[in-house]
């Protein structure tokens, strides 16, 4: 418990403390109150980063969860052959470090020796330039989806397995078809698990860092140092040396995520009671 407090509250407190100061060329470090936050809120780079991440969230998360849900339902229906193999196959990417996954997809996307570009050349088909400005967010979303569909699917699948078999039998007796069963029994049973996965996805997508950081090497023109909010905080602290401002930015970012998570939780809970 002590360690827990030490590892969570101390950095938070220290960040809050640091964020109130500013280092100037003349006069050293001075107390500036909330100035850093005011700057951060007005900072167009930070705003763009947050908006971009939010756009990413809106595209990627529903897609990923929908896919995970579909696969979980399909696996649970027991109609598939090779269900075991498929389940493991979809899950395997989760065991691949995001660094390796991004490097791999980065090469696959690449125009030089990526198989897509090679295939396109062979058959004279136009292949979209995956690493260009317009495609980048989609390409990132693909990488993240590839990594985490399996993880979410396993959570949902595990939840489905705990639905008692009698419920299905009773529903079948009452004349419910497989679709009806999926809709009226399986989906409600999945609600808590879905909420959990949604929450993790919120947290995950708002701190998007590894994937853009690594793709930056391949596509430096598209991804600048403030592509996502987290990347921005990182570049502020380590290349810009603006430690105090970086502390303010990461504090704000943490706040945004917590608020967003509570909003998600709140709306989901309200819908349940109504």
């Amino acid at each position: 418990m002590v360690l827990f407090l030490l590892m969570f509250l101390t950095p938070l407190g220290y960040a809050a403390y640091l964020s109130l100061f500013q280092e100037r060329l003349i006069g050293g470090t001075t107390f500036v109150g909330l100035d850093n936050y005011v700057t951060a809120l007005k900072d167009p780079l930070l705003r763009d980063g947050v908006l971009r991440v939010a756009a990413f969230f809106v595209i990627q998360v529903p897609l990923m969860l929908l896919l995970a849900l579909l696969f979980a339902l399909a696996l649970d229906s027991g109609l598939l052959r090779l269900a075991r193999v498929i389940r493991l196959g979809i899950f395997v990417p989760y065991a691949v470090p995001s660094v390796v996954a991004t490097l791999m997809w980065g090469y696959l996307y690449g125009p030089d020796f990526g198989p897509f570009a090679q295939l396109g050349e062979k058959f004279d088909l136009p292949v979209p330039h995956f690493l260009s400005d317009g495609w980048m967010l989609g390409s990132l979303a693909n990488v993240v989806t590839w990594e985490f569909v399996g993880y979410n699917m396993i959570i949902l699948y595990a939840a489905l397995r705990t639905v008692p078999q009698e419920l299905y039998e009773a529903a079948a007796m009452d004349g419910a078809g497989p679709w009806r069963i999926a809709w009226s029994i399986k989906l409600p049973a999945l609600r808590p698990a879905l909420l959990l996965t949604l929450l993790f996805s919120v947290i995950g997508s708002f701190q998007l860092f590894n994937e853009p950081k690594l793709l930056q090497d391949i596509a430096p023109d598209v991804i600048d140092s403030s592509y996502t909010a987290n990347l921005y905080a990182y570049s502020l602290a380590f290349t810009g040396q603006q430690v105090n401002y970086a502390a303010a930015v990461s504090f704000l970012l943490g706040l945004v995520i917590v608020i967003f998570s509570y909003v998600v939780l709140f709306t989901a809970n309200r819908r349940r009671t109504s």
Partner: protein
Amino acid sequence: MLAVLAYFLLPLFWLAVASTKSTQDLFTSFGLWFSRSPQLLENIRETVTHDDGVFLHWLLNTVLYSVGSALGAALLAAAAGYGFAKYRFRGNNAAFSLVLGAIMIPTTALAIPTYLLFAKVDLVNTPWAIVLPSLVSPFGLYLMRIYAEDAVPDSLLEAARIDGAGEMRIFCTIALRLLAPGLVTVVLFTLVATWNNYFLPLIMLNDPRLYPVTVGLSSWASQAVGGGSGANSNMLALVTTGSLLSIIPLVIAFLLLQRYWQSGLATGGVKQ
């Protein structure tokens, strides 16, 4: 469904194929099939010996960091989860909601402040900088609490107390044993989290000898992009082979232990 499977496995297949090629073949032969002169062993040899075997150092570091923090985190999570589940103390609920709140605080938002803090106490650029923050796993704690409520019957604890066992002894000899399946889950997931962690070691370490494999590979990858000339000409092949080598242990671990993590996730996902 087979198409789906292909989507998930194709990149891995590509990686396996690519790691048998020299850098030149990567550019000249078709990406999804082997080239005429496969040289997997040659690639592995070069990956392992490049720069005085720094890759082996990275692998070893990764194993040390992740096993160390996984075991530590699981023990701490078990102790704390058990405490929350079986003892009533003042501030019990308040403390637990604090833990739940902590799940939501993104680790990366904490990373920069943690770095600044560690820089003050000279822990930066030591293995401790990686292991200490990873020791705390709010999600693991949450999982263990739920698990402990079911798995450790109160009557057993009472019987032990009547027989005169101290609380410490009860925890070590009875509770830990009953919690074992849950422990494996927490170990496995912390292991993966630390194994795959990139942000934290990236900012904490600047000595290449201390890098875990993720940071090391990405530094090679950026060399491969920037150079392609001189000493770095074969970098690309090294990156693909290194990537392949680095994912094999985890994939095997997951396949072998699947019974545990599946049941563990079921506990966490179902009971909110």
